[in-house]
């Protein structure tokens, strides 16, 4: 029997506003527990929410970039349930009139492309954090995160494999970071996802019963959790059992999903319009302004890099696929006349260093300014490519200024022909055997002479000039 998998994703994206969705509390990550909690975030008796307009603007950017409908009138509802890190006993969310509806996004998997439809993207407030393993017999509650704006992006159940799910998640992550609406930081929980998985017999129209996998926050785990769940469901059905509609938790250590049925017990969220918040209306003027100021997206950048700057397709693709990379490329290029050289270094040596350290370029010690200087010094002949590599490594470690490294280490390339000629003569004179062997036809020895000169000059000799001088001397 062959099975088809049907997957839908609900991705929670933390919007990168400075303050919370309904209060002036800070959204900064990593602060000491309970220091970013406003009266409103705490849900004290008598407090009232006031919506942060910027959160709407950020949500609208996402809507526009996915070709979605923007509901210029949108409203808030309450979702009622009890949990210690949900201070009010309800979450304010958008049930009936979400800000964004009916968009789509293109994903690329191995050798094919696919369009995934987005049902809706709505604003809601995040909960706080419960810490279960810190205190004996007790759970600690930190409300710093409570009230942070989330955009919940709900896909249609059109994803057919774990790989597609990962590609979809990656595409959303790329988009929200380019739109500058989320930092995309998975480790800090800026993006989290719930996955609905069901299976059906190939060709069947009707969907199978789905299980919801909660709160998965890395690409690797999305793939593993889905694959585990697909296997589990197939095993169940092939053994004549049924899939139960339930919420399951993925345990990354054991690589398994397990039922969280206790949490689901007869839950009825009793959604109703939040009586504290009137509908928010976004004017035509605001919408137009957001549209006009929409940041350039990866595809647009890629085309621009190829057509206007003349990069290779592969270079353009690599650079445009990451927001931080594209930013670095554009910033460094603006500081030199040689954008192609910038691209070459980014895709080559710099990418290698990033991979080695497993970091993002904006987390490295290399600033666009310094990178620009490095490229300038290569193209104006101050240093050779080889020296540039060592300078880059030094910058990578210490963040020192490129010019200062070149100065203090005396790395300026020797261009002066008379100096180079003197050195070359010395090398030739002190290696008579090699000279005669070369002259007898052992051409490969040319490299030996170049190497000796580089050794004498600690690599600072201009290789082009050395070649010409040597050719002349060994004639």
């Amino acid at each position, binding site marked *: 029997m062959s099975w088809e998998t049907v997957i839908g994703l609900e991705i929670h994206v933390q919007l990168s*506003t*400075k*303050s919370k969705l309904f*209060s*002036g*509390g*800070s959204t900064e990550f990593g602060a*000491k*527990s*309970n*220091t*970013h*909690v*406003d*009266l409103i*975030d*705490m849900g*004290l008796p008598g407090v009232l929410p*006031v*919506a*942060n*307009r*910027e*959160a*709407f603007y950020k949500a609208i950017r996402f809507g526009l970039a996915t070709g979605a409908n923007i509901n210029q009138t949108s409203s808030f509802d309450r979702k*009622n349930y*009890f949990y*210690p890190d949900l201070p009010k006993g309800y979450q304010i969310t958008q049930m009936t009139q979400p800000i964004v509806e009916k968009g789509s996004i293109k994903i690329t998997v191995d050798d094919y492309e696919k369009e995934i439809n987005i049902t809706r993207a709505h604003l809601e407030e995040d909960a706080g954090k*419960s*810490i*279960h393993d*810190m*205190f004996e*017999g*007790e*759970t*600690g*509650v*930190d*409300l710093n995160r409570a009230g942070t704006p989330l955009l919940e992006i709900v896909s249609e159940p059109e994803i057919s494999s774990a790989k597609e799910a990962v590609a979809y998640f990656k595409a959303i992550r790329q988009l929200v970071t380019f739109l500058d609406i989320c930092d995309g930081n998975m480790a800090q929980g800026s993006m989290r996802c719930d996955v609905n998985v069901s299976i059906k017999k190939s060709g069947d129209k009707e969907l199978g019963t789905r299980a919801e996998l909660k709160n998965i926050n890395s690409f690797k785990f999305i793939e593993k959790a889905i694959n585990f769940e697909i296997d589990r469901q197939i095993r169940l059905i092939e053994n004549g059992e049924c899939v139960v509609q339930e919420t399951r*938790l993925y345990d990354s250590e054991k690589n398994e999903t397990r039922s*969280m049925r206790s*949490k689901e017990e*007869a839950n*009825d969220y*009793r959604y109703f*319009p939040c*009586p504290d*918040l*009137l*509908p*928010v*209306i976004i004017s035509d003027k605001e919408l137009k302004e957001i549209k006009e100021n929409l940041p350039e997206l990866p595809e647009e950048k890629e085309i621009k890099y190829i057509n206007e700057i003349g990069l290779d397709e592969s270079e353009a693709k690599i650079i445009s696929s990451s927001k931080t990379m594209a930013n670095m490329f554009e910033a460094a290029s603006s500081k030199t006349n040689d954008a192609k050289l910038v691209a070459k270094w980014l895709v080559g040596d710099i990418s290698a260093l990033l991979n080695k350290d497993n970091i993002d370029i904006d987390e490295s010690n290399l600033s666009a300014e310094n990178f620009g200087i490095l490229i300038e010094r290569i193209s104006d002949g101050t240093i050779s490519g080889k020296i540039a590599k060592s300078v880059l490594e030094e910058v990578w470690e210490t963040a020192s200024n490129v010019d200062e490294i070149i100065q203090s280490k005396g790395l300026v390339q020797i261009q002066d022909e008379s100096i180079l000629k003197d050195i070359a003569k010395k090398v030739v004179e002190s290696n008579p055997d090699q000279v005669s062997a070369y002259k007898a036809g052992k051409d490969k020895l040319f490299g030996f002479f170049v190497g000796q000169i580089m050794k004498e000059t600690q690599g600072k000799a201009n290789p082009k000039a050395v070649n010409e001088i040597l050719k002349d001397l060994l004639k």
Partner: protein
Amino acid sequence: MDKKTVTTISYLSRLKIDDEKEEKIINDLGNIIEFVDQLNDVDTSEIDPLANPLEKTAKTRKDIVTAKNLKKKLLEVAPSANEDYFLVPRVVE
């Protein structure tokens, strides 16, 4: 309104109903629901719901951090807290 419904809604509300009061509560709730059932005599098929008497747009705020660090004050109000966290009995996930 029956026992099962009352059990469900009291659980949703996290309220316990004492056995000796149960009958009266089922009865009272039933009467109230019967009383509000007269709303169903009105034809409202063409009527938009009214959630708030102010039929206006919400005022919103600018994205500015205005809150101070209230940690000490807020933890003081809590029935159980240590220096850093609100505390509840251990939750098993």
